[in-house]
């Protein structure tokens, strides 16, 4: 399989983690060993087996469509890394070239 540092960098980009070069060099062989090991699931011939996404059968759960109290805004914003005008303050969301 041989996962390269370059492959790990692409995956990290998708996962929004800015890995250092040193981390990429350590992670690539580690992840390669793990992926090779978990690939054993393909040994099971399972064409006609239905997949399970959950432990027990699930049904939709409904409740009455009525107003319920929610957390007060100031309580929620108290845990935010930055807040302004009673809102979450976030860094710019558009690229400069956009």
């Amino acid at each position: 399989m041989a996962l390269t540092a370059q492959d790990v960098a692409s995956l990290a980009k998708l996962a929004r983690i800015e890995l250092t070069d040193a981390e990429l060099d350590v992670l690539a062989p580690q992840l390669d060993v793990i992926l090779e090991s978990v690939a054993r699931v393909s040994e099971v011939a399972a064409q006609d087996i239905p997949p399970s996404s959950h432990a027990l059968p699930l049904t939709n759960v409904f409740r009455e469509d009525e107003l319920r109290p929610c957390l007060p805004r100031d309580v929620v914003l108290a845990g935010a890394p930055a807040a302004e005008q009673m809102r979450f303050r976030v860094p710019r969301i558009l690229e400069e070239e956009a």
Partner: protein
Amino acid sequence: MTLRQPAAEIILQSAADLASKIKSGELSAVEVARAHLDRIAEIDGEIHAFLYVDGERALATAARVDAKIAAGDEVGPLAGVPLALKDILTYAGAPTTCGSKILEGWLPPYDATVTRRLLDHDLVILGKTNLDEFAMGSSTENSAYGPTRNPWDTSRIPGGSGGGSAAAVAAFEAPLAIGTDTGGSIRQPAAVTGTVGVKPTYGGSSRYGLVALASSLDQPGPCARTVLDAALLHQVIAGHDPCDSTSIDQPVPDVVSAARSADVSGMKIGVVSELGGEGYAPGVEQRFHEGVELLASLGAEIVEVACPHFVYALPAYYLILPAECSSNLAKFDAMRFGLRVGDDGVASAEQVMAMTREAGFGAEVKRRIIIGTYALSSGYYDAYYGQAQKVRTLISRDFDQAFSQVDVLVSPATPVTAFKIGEKVDDPLAMYMNDLCTIPSNLAGNASASFQVGLAPEDGLPVGLQVIAPPLADDRLYRVGAALEAALESDWGGPLLDRLPELGPVR
């Protein structure tokens, strides 16, 4: 105030005994809380079971419980008993870190349902316990705040992810603790610390307020020193919760009566053929087989049962779990809570997000998020995640087949006893092997537990026997566990933890 009993006599008691003495007035909840807080102050520098000790609030809660009892008010069956809460369940007013730098100092704005039930039942929460970061690990070495040490040998791991909860209970810092079990995080720490740990049926206890690792696998449950104590705590925390849409809307199995009955006569018990042999420590196999023979001598019928797909449980789990966790941990985006780094007015939200996740997550969390991202990416989805989901079906079918022949299954809880801190940190696959026996039950969503069966002769470290029961037959776990405990303690002349090496001046 002066203690009416030496503190040592208080902390050595079971939760059941403490509860009845608090109720009768023989002990006050305040002196019980104080004795445990003193014990924590004395030895937790060495054990590091706690990330946060909530001493003042614990004493205030205990005083309220004493007042309620004095006034003749109705109180819960564990009223006044101290408890340690795994730091992945929210408790408003105390930080929830999940063992991660990304949530350092974060104060949750609400209580988890499990926490709410503990408080409503008058338990006294002493603090929050250490864990592998976001519950990813089998040793607590992945905690960003340093490892917890095993009270049996402080150079060794206490298991994980709930090593803090198990060590707190084993070291007599608390008679009870809450754990969460995604692939063995309650049972494996219980096994290697000589304590009791139970994973209820998936949906048996609420996940509301539990910071999600893998939503289809996570399940909160009790940690204790005795089987009855675990059952009493199970009864308090379990039951339907409208805030968790996967919560089971059915009565909680009568686990307390089962623990009191301790009767396995006529029970059919299956030994899983696949969980033993190569890779298992000789002392683990020896104590496990002695435990099985003991159950036979108590009137259980023992048969061997094959579960041929269990050999694929570990690989399937290490695809399903990373896939779910890569999605669940996407919420740590530096926008609404937790850490934010690099917000210099120039960097974009995406850049800040990537820098924050780089700075805030530890190595194992990064490994699993990347594996999950890989397994879910187009081109690989069918071969990895899709195939793992099919294996999950095959494992459930193995269990269905087994439970058509037997009432419960048994196996060692973990292949080896507690290993040295640092021994496996650089070998993720070797670390993953610790959950070999516990993972199948999470994939199928049934009930399972680890009970202590003695010390391995070669290293003098605790061994756990795992019991697995069908969904909603959690009571059977307690029948088996209590029968084993009673027979073993009568052989040993006392509890296993009587043999715990001395920690601090109390013992």
